[in-house]
């Protein structure tokens, strides 16, 4: 185990049971680096996870308090939890693309609308990989997967002028960023800002699934090929066909809205002040 794992993780699930070549650990590590560089301890963070590769593999790895929610509902759970936890406690959620942008999108948008203080790390492996490799909400157009043998034509959330981060931004998210797991410190810097942000923040991180996605789409499980494919498509200088990934911090319009639990506290305090004034 490296210094991050020794400092923050439980030994029993490290290394994870993820496939050889799975990039999820790269995402996981970047989140830990951000936590470490901010100077947080295991007691400062409550870590929640969703369903799928990203949820199952990161659940109960954190050497503090952990929870795993039902599929897509972890944003609603975190909303309730936020009311109970002191504001200083960070809530960090590691979830998948299906969890955040599919089954849980409604709850995700409402958490953004309410500006609930949480950091959502969407670890995106281009579809439903823990169930064997079906296309999902971010699968590149035309991809052959187990459930799109003739090429996926279901409009995804990330191509043809659609960008899921636009939707989350429209719902009121105060901090958004997008990266790939094979990027370096620049991705860690974005995650640090997300965790520091008081309110709803989300970092979308694309990582390679070599077992299911790339083996079908590129015909190889070689992580090096997957890395090259992602690198070519990340911030390309010339036009290329198909999916491209623009990484970095995503501009938002209003990052200074009142946070949800603070808003709730204010209501409670105002009602009680009025009551005691009335009594005087």
């Amino acid at each position, binding site marked *: 185990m490296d210094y991050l794992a020794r400092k923050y993780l439980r030994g029993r699930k490290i290394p994870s049971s993820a496939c050889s070549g799975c990039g999820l650990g790269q995402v996981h590590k970047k989140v830990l680096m951000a936590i470490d560089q901010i100077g947080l301890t295991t*007691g400062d963070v409550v870590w929640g996870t969703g369903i799928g590769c990203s949820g199952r593999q990161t659940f*109960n790895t954190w050497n*503090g308090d952990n929870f795993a*929610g*039902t599929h897509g509902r972890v944003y609603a*759970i975190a*909303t*309730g*939890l936020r009311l109970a936890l002191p504001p200083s406690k960070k809530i960090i959620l590691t979830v998948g693309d299906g969890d955040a942008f599919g089954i849980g999108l409604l709850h995700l948008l409402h958490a953004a609308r309410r500006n609930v203080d949480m950091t959502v790390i969407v670890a995106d492996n281009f579809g439903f990989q823990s169930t064997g490799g079906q296309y999902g909400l971010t699968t590149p157009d035309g991809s052959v997967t187990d459930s799109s043998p003739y090429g996926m034509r279901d409009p995804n959330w990330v191509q043809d002028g659609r960008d899921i981060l636009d939707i989350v931004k429209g719902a009121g998210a105060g901090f958004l960023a997008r990266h790939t797991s094979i990027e370096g410190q620049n991705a860690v810097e974005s995650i640090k800002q997300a965790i520091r942000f008081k309110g709803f923040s989300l970092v979308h991180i694309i990582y390679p699934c070599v077992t299911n996605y790339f083996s079908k789409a590129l015909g190889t499980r070689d992580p090096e090929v997957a890395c090259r494919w992602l690198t070519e498509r990340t911030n390309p200088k010339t036009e290329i066909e198909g999916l491209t990934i623009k990484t970095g911090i995503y501009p938002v319009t209003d990052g200074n809205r009142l946070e949800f639990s603070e808003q709730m506290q204010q209501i409670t305090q105002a009602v*009680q002040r009025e009551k005691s004034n009335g009594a005087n």
Partner: protein
Amino acid sequence: MKRLFDTGNAAITEGAILAGCKVFAGYPITPATEIAENMSRRLPHENGFYVQAEDELAALHICIGASLGGLKAMTATSGPGYILYADPYGWALGSEIPVVVLNAQRVGPVSGITGAPGQGEFYLSRYPTHGGNFESIVLAPNSVQEAFSLTVEAFYLAERFRMPITILADQIVTDGWESLLVPETEDEIKQMGLRIATRKINQGPEFYPATDEIDVPPVVLGHNTGAACSDWTPTSDGYDTEEVIWQHKHAYRLIYKVRNHQDILPHYEEIALDDNPDVILVAYGSPSRVVKSAVRAAREQGLKVGAIRLITLWPFPDKAFERSVKYLSVELNFDGQLVREVQRAMPKGSEVHFLGRCGELPKVTELVEAARTLINNQPLESIQWQREAW
């Protein structure tokens, strides 16, 4: 003691607040909307929070999240929302998180008639989620006062059993106006027989014991106990596992912590059973009030009729049905739900019959005539699907 004249919905709100409820998350739905409204007004006075959720899935998940953080929480709905609770309900059952759920039943299926009473979720409340391998606890009030006291009790049981508790009310109980006594002192709380449990925090490392114990504190996040709770089958320290032995321990705990402690659950009410009546009417919730009147009316006419009024619906109180007699199940549906459980629980050689109403209460005279027919050993005349020998 505060004496109020108010609805069941108001009584439920007051009961929750007395029990220490700090978070209510809900989605408006008739006939439970008033609970949300009352909570939104009352909770800020009690350092609590009202959250209007985007749907019922979120409502119960928010409540469970709050409870996971150590705050007592509750949600309320009617049938169309109760079915959406299936997802979070299972999570709370499996992760053993205390939370209170109220269902003001209206007539269905689906949206049905919003302002008419129903009793269609008798079995749904036994199996409010998928997967099996658990027992449910469900309480059924039949008055405004009891809506108050059973809400307090539901919070108490949720803490001791560390699980979601359903209060299965109906539109007449929640919308009806009656007088209501609310205790104001510790003595008055005791005097009324109300029980309140404070939240305790499981310090680990064993969060999920392989026993039928109750009173094991639930997992609470945010205290750096190394707590782990998930939707997966847990090891005793909360790791997700695929080893069947842990599944067996998990199922054993979820089933037997309830089955082996039924003695602390509220009992059923026996009405005029001392002289071994010829017919026993069986009901819960608002029809039980008509049943009670019918017993009185029948007795006045010299008919030996008694009644059993269920307060705890699940686990089903089989003990209440030890008499070999003719039972008549009176319920607010035409398909017959309670009647099936009575049939299962009653001794061999007993008879059970069914009298259902749909969207409205039965009449006293109707019940008395049905009892008379049964006493006279005549077949209960089948009126289409409303009345039949079961």
